[in-house]
């Protein structure tokens, strides 16, 4: 009897897993329609590296480190060259860089609550940048409905596991994966 029960449990587990991988399969379809080519643009990767450094600092409630990452990000955004893209993408990228630089500047000089406010817009900018530039890594777009006083906010992460940059240690695991860029 116990063995049977165990068998059923493992069976439903397997079903669940199958369902999950199915969902991921759907996501893959979604993303193949977006331009997610794995182009390796070192300047874009540098921007992403600084963004993730900032995100990790916010996850750890470390305002000082976040400010440093903000300063680094301003530099990597400035170094970004858009000339290799087509006209339309160039305009979009210029807008993105201008806005992201402003967010990074605020983050470099503000207390943590304010840093998190600007991180929300920055995350939108960086996500839009990746949609144009592509990236060599797998990225997870995550969302927490409790962030930004209940308005909800997105962020990008290199890992599937949720580590919330908006709520930090107060609520580290609030959130879910909304989409995957470059499915492994």
């Amino acid at each position, binding site marked *: 009897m116990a063995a049977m029960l165990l068998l059923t449990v493992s069976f439903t587990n397997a079903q669940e897993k199958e369902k999950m991988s199915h969902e991921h399969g759907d996501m893959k379809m979604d993303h193949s329609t977006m331009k997610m080519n794995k182009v390796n643009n070192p300047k874009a990767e540098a921007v992403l590296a600084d963004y993730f450094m900032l995100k990790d600092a916010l996850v750890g409630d470390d305002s000082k480190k976040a400010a440093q990452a903000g300063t680094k990000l301003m530099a990597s955004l400035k170094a970004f060259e858009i000339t290799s893209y087509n006209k339309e993408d160039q305009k979009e990228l210029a*807008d993105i860089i201008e*806005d992201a630089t*402003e*967010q990074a500047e605020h983050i470099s000089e503000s207390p943590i609550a304010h840093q998190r406010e600007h991180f929300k817009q920055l995350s939108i900018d960086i996500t839009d940048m990746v949609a144009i530039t592509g990236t060599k890594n797998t990225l997870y777009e995550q969302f927490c409905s409790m962030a930004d006083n209940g308005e909800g906010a997105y962020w990008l992460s290199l890992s599937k596991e949720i580590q919330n940059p908006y709520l930090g240690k107060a609520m580290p695991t609030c959130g879910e994966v909304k989409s995957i860029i470059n499915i492994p």
Partner: protein
Amino acid sequence: MKIVKIIVLVLLVVFVGIQFVPTVHNQSERTPKADFMLVNDVPKDVKNKLQISCYDCHSNNTQYPWYSKIQPGAWFMENHIKNGKEELNFNEWDTYSNRRKKSKLKSIINQIKDDEMPLSSYTLIHRDAKLSENEKKEMIQFMKQLRDSL
């Protein structure tokens, strides 16, 4: 006693001296076509309040108060206006990309909600620039509506 006299005299000389330091005046006759109020359909109440509470530092045209004519008040004012316009210039609204408009509106909403703007050092003297709870609500609602329409 003598030393006090000297100090007072020195301060007086410095005070008179700094009056001769020139400051840039932020004044302009015409409103640019890109102005926030010209390109958006802003309700009268919100318009009025924006003009009084925001435009002194966030546009090319400041209504100068008396103390801003005397140093060191003029320096403070000059600095506030410079920083204010760098962050957001309502006169240049339509030159911003949609992305920036949205992020500016988000910042405006947050600043008003958190009572960070208008600056308390500014409303201390400009009593009429202070936003009441009702005015805050009205302003935030309009800015949200505008953001969603972009």
